[in-house]
């Protein structure tokens, strides 16, 4: 019985985390965008508007569920759940600290990628079920975009997996720091197994992974449907895209999924390329910075810190770059990112055989 209790507790904790993160990200996104545009952002609710996100969610909780009379009721009501759950399930395989992972799957990355693709179905359900031309257009664009960008993202991740030789996210993390049993070579030449820190991260073990990370980062932006790849939402063209007919809590779930997705893709990138929960500080002689900053608490701190940094960059990019056109989006994916990702994979293979 305790078994099931643990399951429920872990699931609740993860849900609470995604919800809290969404509120936090919502507030920080509004503030960051405001500062970038020389505005102040929310200022009225709480000190410096810090309770604005709670006020927003309270408002949403009170709102009526509106189902358009011509909508497909089953698809329409089910879609936000499918969208959110597919993202939320992705969190199951992500390690938070040494020995702290909701589930240590041997095919962790595979599982995450498979389950994330389910979101596309949810978005298509939302668009089709709404029986609204804007929603349908938005969801079609979204499906085209997400299916296309999964290829460069996947290949870029595979090139990192080829360096780590495992799909298990926990093991990928272990192999990038001082807890590793194998020798870690910085740039393939200098043994940093006992030095650790940022020198042991995948991007520094094999420098071409920086290119792979950039490819993955761009593709992950597209998978989150965030600007400059927000053509599924495209406020100026499609009103709000696939979620135009949603109100109240259902809309909140779509929102929750978007922000959780930002965190999820950021964290996958951090784990595979930037050492996951490993400390960024190396051991310098007798100053054992890496040893001191590698524990359960520190692990959570490092992974949160790195991921939030990535999320901040995502927000920064959203408020800087304008939206791509559909054809630009597709040609960029297929003509630039996919070939480059394949190149990275090739280099990874050669690197694995010759340098490691």
């Amino acid at each position, binding site marked *: 019985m305790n078994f099931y209790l643990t399951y429920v507790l872990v699931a609740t904790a993860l849900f609470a985390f995604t919800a809290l993160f969404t509120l936090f990200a919502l507030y920080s996104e509004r503030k960051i965008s*405001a*500062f*970038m545009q*020389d505005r102040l952002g929310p200022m009225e609710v709480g000190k410096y508007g810090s309770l604005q996100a709670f006020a927003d969610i309270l408002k949403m909780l009170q709102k009526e569920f509106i189902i358009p009379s011509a909508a497909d009721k089953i698809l329409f009501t089910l879609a936000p759940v499918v969208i959110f759950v597919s993202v939320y399930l992705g969190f199951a395989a992500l390690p938070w600290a040494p020995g702290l992972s909701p589930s240590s799957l041997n095919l962790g990355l595979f599982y995450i990628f498979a389950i994330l693709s389910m979101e596309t179905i949810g978005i298509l359900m939302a668009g089709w079920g709404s029986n609204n031309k804007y929603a349908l257009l938005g969801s079609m664009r979204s499906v085209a975009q997400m299916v296309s960008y999964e290829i460069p993202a996947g290949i870029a991740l595979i090139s990192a997996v080829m360096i780590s030789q495992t799909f298990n996210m926990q093991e990928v993390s272990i192999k990038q720091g001082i807890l590793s049993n194998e020798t870690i070579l910085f740039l393939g030449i200098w043994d940093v197994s006992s030095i650790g820190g940022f020198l042991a991260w995948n991007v520094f073990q094999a420098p071409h992974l920086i290119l792979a990370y950039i490819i993955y980062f761009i593709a992950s932006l597209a998978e989150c449907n965030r600007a400059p790849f927000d053509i599924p939402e495209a406020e100026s063209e499609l009103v709000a895209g696939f979620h135009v007919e949603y109100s109240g809590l259902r809309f909140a779930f779509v929102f929750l999924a978007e922000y959780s997705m930002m965190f999820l893709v950021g964290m996958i990138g951090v784990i595979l390329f930037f050492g996951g929960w490993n400390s960024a500080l190396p051991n310098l002689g007798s100053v054992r910075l890496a040893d001191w900053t590698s524990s359960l608490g520190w692990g959570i701190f490092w992974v949160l810190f790195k991921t939030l940094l990535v999320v901040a960059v995502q927000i920064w*990019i959203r408020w*800087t*770059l304008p939206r791509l056109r559909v054809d630009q989006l597709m040609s960029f994916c297929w003509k630039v990112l996919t070939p480059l990702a394949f190149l990275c994979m090739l280099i990874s293979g050669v690197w694995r055989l010759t340098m490691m």
Partner: protein
Amino acid sequence: MYVNIRGLASNNDVNRLSGMRNKLLNVFRTVGRGLSLTLRHFFAATESRRVKSITDDNYFLQNSGTTTIQYPHQKLPLPEVARYQLDVEMDDCIVCDLCAKICPVDCIEIESIKSTEAIGKTSDGTTKRLYAAKFDIDMAKCMYCGLCTVVCPTECIIMTDTYDRSTLTLNEMVYKFSDMTAGEAEEKRIALEKQNAERQAAKQAALSPEKPK
């Protein structure tokens, strides 16, 4: 489609390649410029705008930081010549109706009652002979042109520095300046009618010759 039969790089290919390279460099340059711009503004946001009057010498010199003025909490100081909502000094008003006539949007409504005698004098010495039973200005219609203040002979209608008087209903935007109650107005009206009737009778009496007996 262009096919290079000899298998050598022609000028055409070289041009296309260098064009692509330039395009790629341009992408990086412009993206970098945009990102650095937003980042600069982000860090400049630690400084926020100080509330200064437009008459201040440094008003236009503040080029960085957030520009928001949190309106109800902060207000820009008004210049001395600020002309916003209308106000009427009823003691000085001679109810000449000029303001209502000149108003381009007809937002002033005046109803006058002739007095039976001189009521008094305004502060500039003009004699008042009319009561204002109704002096309504609909500020929802007013376009703040200020023509009424120009034509007013006694300068009793003026523009004040009040610019934000929000109301819950549109009716509240109609400002009533008349200081008479309905009862008083009725009283004056009856008095006027009585006087008119008396005068009429006197006139009749004066006009008609003595009736022969």
